[in-house]
């Protein structure tokens, strides 16, 4: 089953063609980072405008790279992210997907963006391969920080989440404090390699909730440090970046390791924009090796938002969820399902 996936929940306009939730025939991502960077974050109206401008060329390109034409011959279904995300951005993808499905007379499948990230470790695996289950997935991005136990591709349980800021949000805020620009993740990751991660003892994980995360205290600690010591020079910035990143990675890794041991998992995966971060990738790989878990660290382009994961999730959920009606809309506050 060949699915054209469409993703427009935030600041990437993406389309991809995926067969049976695994074989990626094409994946096109048009990022809007440069448009939002001057504002220090994603501006919803700018995102909405860019999505409309880019949606047709991006879909055309995804079809072309998959050897398909705009007449949709060979496409068995269209899938789109219905939430969570920015409503004005989501509506572009949902409108496009419904229109294509209607025009081509194929089903339109609605996908939860987070379930898209959870489907990523199953991409590019052979029909009998794929991660050993149960799989523990750490999903970290600008909008989400989640630890999820995946029993099968369509059965999972959220173990923990952030009680305040998402990890990626903390990166953006700290980058702004250090005047490093937006987005914060890649630039802090780069700068941290030249700094001393033990230079400053920033606070780590919260202890009373076994699998929950908190990053607002850490962010405040960095802000206080900058206020007390003045605007840092390059070396001091590198030390702050390294120490901050060590605190984030420690918190994420520690809870992942505890959860994995407690629950007897067979494999571990990471996803989301912060999973493109070198320090986190190295740490999770090290933990997996030490614990004897299979480790699934996707290529960076499949950690950040993309449409291949949306097409994959649509395939896994196709027999559980009814296709979208012509009157379907987006749900900006969509959440992951409760088990059962």
């Amino acid at each position, binding site marked *: 089953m060949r699915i054209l996936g469409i993703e427009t929940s935030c600041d990437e306009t993406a389309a991809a063609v995926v067969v049976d939730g695994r074989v990626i025939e094409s994946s096109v991502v048009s990022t809007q980072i440069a448009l939002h960077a*001057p*504002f*220090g974050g994603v*501006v919803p*109206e*700018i995102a*909405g*405008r860019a*999505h*409309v*401008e880019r*949606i*047709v*060329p991006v*879909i*055309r390109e995804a079809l072309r790279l998959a050897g398909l034409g*705009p*007449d*949709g011959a060979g496409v068995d279904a269209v899938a789109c992210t219905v939430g969570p995300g920015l*409503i*004005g951005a989501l*509506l*572009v993808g*949902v*409108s*496009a997907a*419904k*229109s*294509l499905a*209607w*025009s*081509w*007379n194929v089903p339109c499948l609605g996908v939860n963006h987070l379930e898209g990230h959870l489907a990523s470790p199953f991409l590019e695996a052979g029909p009998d391969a794929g991660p050993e289950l149960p799989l523990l997935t750490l999903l970290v991005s600008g909008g989400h920080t989640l630890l999820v136990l995946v029993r099968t591709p369509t059965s999972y349980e959220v173990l923990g989440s952030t009680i305040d800021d998402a990890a990626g949000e903390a990166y953006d805020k700290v980058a*702004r404090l250090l*005047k490093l620009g937006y987005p914060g993740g890649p630039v802090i990751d780069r700068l941290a390699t030249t700094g001393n991660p033990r230079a400053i003892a920033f606070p780590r994980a919260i202890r009373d909730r076994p699998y929950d995360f908190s990053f607002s205290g850490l962010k405040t600690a960095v802000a206080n440090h900058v206020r007390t010591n003045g605007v840092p020079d390059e070396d001091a910035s590198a030390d702050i970046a390294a120490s901050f990143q060590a605190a984030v990675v420690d918190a994420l890794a520690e809870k992942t390791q505890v959860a994995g041991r407690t629950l007897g998992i067979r494999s571990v995966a990471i996803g989301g924009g912060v999973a493109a971060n070198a320090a986190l990738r190295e740490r999770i790989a090290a933990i997996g090796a030490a614990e004897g878990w299979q480790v699934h660290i996707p290529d960076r382009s499949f950690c950040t938002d993309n449409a291949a994961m949306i097409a994959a999730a649509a395939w896994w959920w196709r027999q559980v969820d009814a296709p979208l009606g*012509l*009157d*379907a*809309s*987006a749900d900006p506050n969509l959440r992951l399902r409760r088990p059962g």
Partner: protein
Amino acid sequence: MLIAAIDTSTIAVSVALADGDGLVARFDAPRVRRHAETVLPALEAVLTLAGRTRREITHVCVDVGPGMFTGLRVGVTTAITVAMALDLPVVSVGSLDLLAWRVALGGAHRGTVGAVLDARRKECFVQPFAVEPGEVPVPLAPAAALPPSSAAELLRRHGCSGIVGDGPVAYPEPFAGFTVLEPRYPDAATAAIVALRTIDSATSADEVTLCYLREPDAEIPKDLRP
């Protein structure tokens, strides 16, 4: 020929079909607001009413604004993706032009007329037109987003006595001196009729551009300014 027209530029949502003989079927929901939920069911409905299929559509026509940003994006995205999928050209029409066209096609008013739509945030989208019954309305100034009093002033300067659109509903006082003409909102049936006359302006789906007339609401934070 079969033109499918879409208008989601205001709280009204409408879809219409026209062929060489004129209007075939229309759907008008004057105050639904729910653009994403309504457009495709409406398109399906007018085709069913007309006993036609999506494969028979030869042109898509869409109102590209100005108007409600989110509504416009739903209508335009629907129009351009249907056009891409069915390999059809797109006729773009403006919401203020459509209001002027309604007056011209109605035939009761001649002279200058102001098209005024509520733009929210204490502004109007406004444009003066010279209108002759049955003729193409001629814009007398570029479309603009202006405070209501400046919009009224602009229209007076161009000698407009009548205005069309929901501007005077939202801002009665500044427009008190004008004769208010029907309709309040642009509609797809008019767009389809206009498309019959402007069909040579059709473009590919990739070339369709929205008319916002206003910069995105975004300010560069103080600490990020150079």
